[in-house]
């Protein structure tokens, strides 16, 4: 029935008309006068700072707002011709799939097969069509091997795929995803984005994806909608979005766009491929580098002469490490073996890890989901007992775990941190002004700083200095770039005061901005340990966008890239700035 197919595709997948919505008891609307349309088969990216209304818009498009959350709503939302304000989320679920940020609360069944089958069963589909749909969606998402597993044995990335499968199994016309990559490592994150692109191209599924790490998904998108304080600030192509972001909200710029912007190259690239093509057009990278790449190829592994010069010029880390190399380590991890699980499921999570952290050193601990990053930090903090080896930390360790709200149990900041020592801890993180505030009223970044103050409180008095090691586990989940920049400044301040700072993170761009050293874990073993600019430019997945564009050892940030491209308008790089300041 070609006419039917054409007519169903002519109806917009999502049409929003002057939508204004306020959560119950909210002081101001979360969405204010939103109007937009999403055509069938589009892949749109929803950008914007934290708390700008992205999640609320997605929830309005799947019917959770207002049906589930209540509140006041005006205007219209139509999903594939269905009135989302009149229909409930259950009725809409046939035409729209929704994948939320937190994988833990997205699964309601015990086994993967049951989870994927559930929406079809709820619709009274016969067993044969259920079995076929489950099989097909599992094949499409490359998870047939998971079907017989229980959901509590899956990794974060696998749970996200299962949730996506459950959202897709009814073959909805529109799929909404709320920061689906925020808990995934770079490999799993990239896989998910390209999987969405494939579903969009091959199945014609319309995608609306809210994300903070735009560099990861901009190249896959046809369109970008940027939100600002509950309304739409920009709606257009990815290329136009980058130009808009450069002028209106630089926090939304991708590293590749910033590189081009600093180097004075137009147009701004939406992805690595486009950037490389543009650079090749302008002038080859090799020519600009004065034969660096050629020398690298010719030397076949031997460090090219320019590489050291470049590291000195833009990295600065080697030089900074000089005086510290003689200082006694702040933390020393020797032959650490950790076993987790029970019974038949015991497995070695850490296998003979050796690591030394110098005072004032800033280290990014990276690796795939399940590589052992969190276990390493938890063992150092004595939450986990090793089966062999030792983790010794001079002056103690302060560990901030993945969810800062776990530390916030009282209704006033001062109740969490009483007395002079509490005030001193708040001053350390710059929150001394918030004594009377309710922790729940603080912004996400402030809550994280408060949690850090809670783990630091009183340790300074014990040892007359900050703890030897301050460790943060995945601190940038759901953070926009402005908040990440705040965190970088805090980390730099703590390191400058003498603490070794180790951050477990999947965020390669964040690691490039704060770390001077990167430790890469793979299956419980340290597989790389070295200068951040070298590690983050020496691979594909654990490399920054700038490194992937330029493919030059030691060049990982837009500022370094701009210096490398030699435009002359670039600011001094981080290392030189620190050395000079």
């Amino acid at each position: 029935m070609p006419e039917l197919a054409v007519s169903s595709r002519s109806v917009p997948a999502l049409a929003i008309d002057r939508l204004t919505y306020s959560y119950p008891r909210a002081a101001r609307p979360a969405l204010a006068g939103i109007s937009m349309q999403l055509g069938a088969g589009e892949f749109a990216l929803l950008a914007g700072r934290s708390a700008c209304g992205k999640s609320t818009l997605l929830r309005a498009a799947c019917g959770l707002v207002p049906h589930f959350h209540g509140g006041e709503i005006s205007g219209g939302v139509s999903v594939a011709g269905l009135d989302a304000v009149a229909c409930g989320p259950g009725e809409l679920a046939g035409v729209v799939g929704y994948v939320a940020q937190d994988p833990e609360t997205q699964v309601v069944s015990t086994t993967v097969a049951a989870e994927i089958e559930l929406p079809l069963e709820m619709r009274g589909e016969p067993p044969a069509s259920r079995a076929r749909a489950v099989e097909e969606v599992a094949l499409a998402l490359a998870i047939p091997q998971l079907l017989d597993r229980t959901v509590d044995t899956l990794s974060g990335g696998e749970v996200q795929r299962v949730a996506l499968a459950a959202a897709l199994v009814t073959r909805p016309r529109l799929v909404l995803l709320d920061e689906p990559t925020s808990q995934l490592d770079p490999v799993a994150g990239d896989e998910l984005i390209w999987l969405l692109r494939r579903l969009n191209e091959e199945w014609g599924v319309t995608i609306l994806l809210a994300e903070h790490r735009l560099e990861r998904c901009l190249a896959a998108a046809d369109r970008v909608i940027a939100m600002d304080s509950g309304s739409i600030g920009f709606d257009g192509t990815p290329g136009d979005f980058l130009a808009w972001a450069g002028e209106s909200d630089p926090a939304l710029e991708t590293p590749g766009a910033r590189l081009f912007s600093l180097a004075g190259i137009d147009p701004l690239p939406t992805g690595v491929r486009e950037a490389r093509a543009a650079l090749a057009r302008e002038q080859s990278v090799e020519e600009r580098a004065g034969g660096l790449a050629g020398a690298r190829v010719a030397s076949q592994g031997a460090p090219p002469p320019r590489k050291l010069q470049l590291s000195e010029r833009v990295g600065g880390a080697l030089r900074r490490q000089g005086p510290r190399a003689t200082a006694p380590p702040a933390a020393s991890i020797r032959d650490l073996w950790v076993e987790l699980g029970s019974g038949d499921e015991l497995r070695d999570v850490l296998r003979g890890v050796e690591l030394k952290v110098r005072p004032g050193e800033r280290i990014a601990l990276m690796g795939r989901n399940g590589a052992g990053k969190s276990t390493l930090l938890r063992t150092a903090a004595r939450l986990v007992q090793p089966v062999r080896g030792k983790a010794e930390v001079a002056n103690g360790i302060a560990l901030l775990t993945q969810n800062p709200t776990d530390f916030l149990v009282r209704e006033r900041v001062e109740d969490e941190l009483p007395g002079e020592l509490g005030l001193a801890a708040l001053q350390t993180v710059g929150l001394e002004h918030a004594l009377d505030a309710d922790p729940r009223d603080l912004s996400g970044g402030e809550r994280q700083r408060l949690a850090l103050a809670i783990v630091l409180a009183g340790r300074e008095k014990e040892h007359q200095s900050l703890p030897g090691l301050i460790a943060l586990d995945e601190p940038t989940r759901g953070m926009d770039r402005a908040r990440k920049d705040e965190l970088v400044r805090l980390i730099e301040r703590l390191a400058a005061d003498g603490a070794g700072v180790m951050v477990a993170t999947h965020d390669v761009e964040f690691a490039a901005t704060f770390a001077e050293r990167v430790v890469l874990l793979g299956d419980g073993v340290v597989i790389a340990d070295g200068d951040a600019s070298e590690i983050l430019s020496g691979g594909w997945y654990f490399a920054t966008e700038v490194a992937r564009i330029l493919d030059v050892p030691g060049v990982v940030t837009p500022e370094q890239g701009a210096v490398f491209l030699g435009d002359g308008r670039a600011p001094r790089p981080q290392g030189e700035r620190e050395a000079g300041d």
Partner: protein
Amino acid sequence: MRSPFAYTPRPGPLQEASPGAAVVYLGSLVVVTFLYSNPAVLLAAGIAAVLAGLIAGAREAVRAALWMGLTLAVLIVAVNALVVDRGQTVLLRLGEWPLLGRVDVTAEALAAGAVIGLRAAVAMVAFGVYSACVDPDRVLRSLRPIAGRSALTATLISRLVPVAAADAARLRDAGHLRGPAAAPLGRAALARRLLAGSLDRAVDVAATLELRGYGLNAPRAERARSRSRYDRRFYAVGVTLLVAAIAGLPLGVDDVGFYPTVEISIGGSTLALCVLLVVAGLAPLRRRPIRAASQAAPGVSRA
């Protein structure tokens, strides 16, 4: 860390059986333990439950249930010995205790306590095997047409329990990590925070259920799976056990008394019931394929 009682999909007759068949089979063992006080019968029921669990691959669940059950049994024995002053064979005179008065520990009270403890331990093992081997999704779905709201509540709870357990573990870790000058976590604050967090989680899980179409009044879906070929076996074993256990009562299989002296009769009918129980524990054995049987036939050397 996974609970040892968490359901683990494995290929096996007990796992493949329909929930009804598994409930009848394991339930019959529990019913026997509550009908009988004869320690031989209880021991046989215990052996049957352990065998069933081991054959079904639920070794961790059996081990954990045994540990918990026997710990509970020891506690019951101790309490019974202290609070029951019947029995003629006084083993220990503990004098006057506050609230309890004069306490004499008798062999009869110890034996009676051991039987109650054994009963509790056997029931725990049977429940442990059920929990590790019977798919809760299938149970809930089979209940949904009968009691939709209850099934929804059960689904919500079954999902929230592990989530809340994980939250509690994280909060405890966060409590350990607080600096020495931060206000201590405290049980009340922990409980309050856990409750608030659970409510938030419940809202998220309920939203997911809503999105999956739980609120729809769709026609009841047909059964997804045909019955397992092992269903008949489990129904037959369960029903046989129940009939034998009920028939055994008037035949004097449970002629047991503890006070004033312990009297336990173990006759032919008792032994027969015990043998039947132990054999029932083999029900989860997989039927040997016909081809394999023919390969092992006499005259065929497998050198």
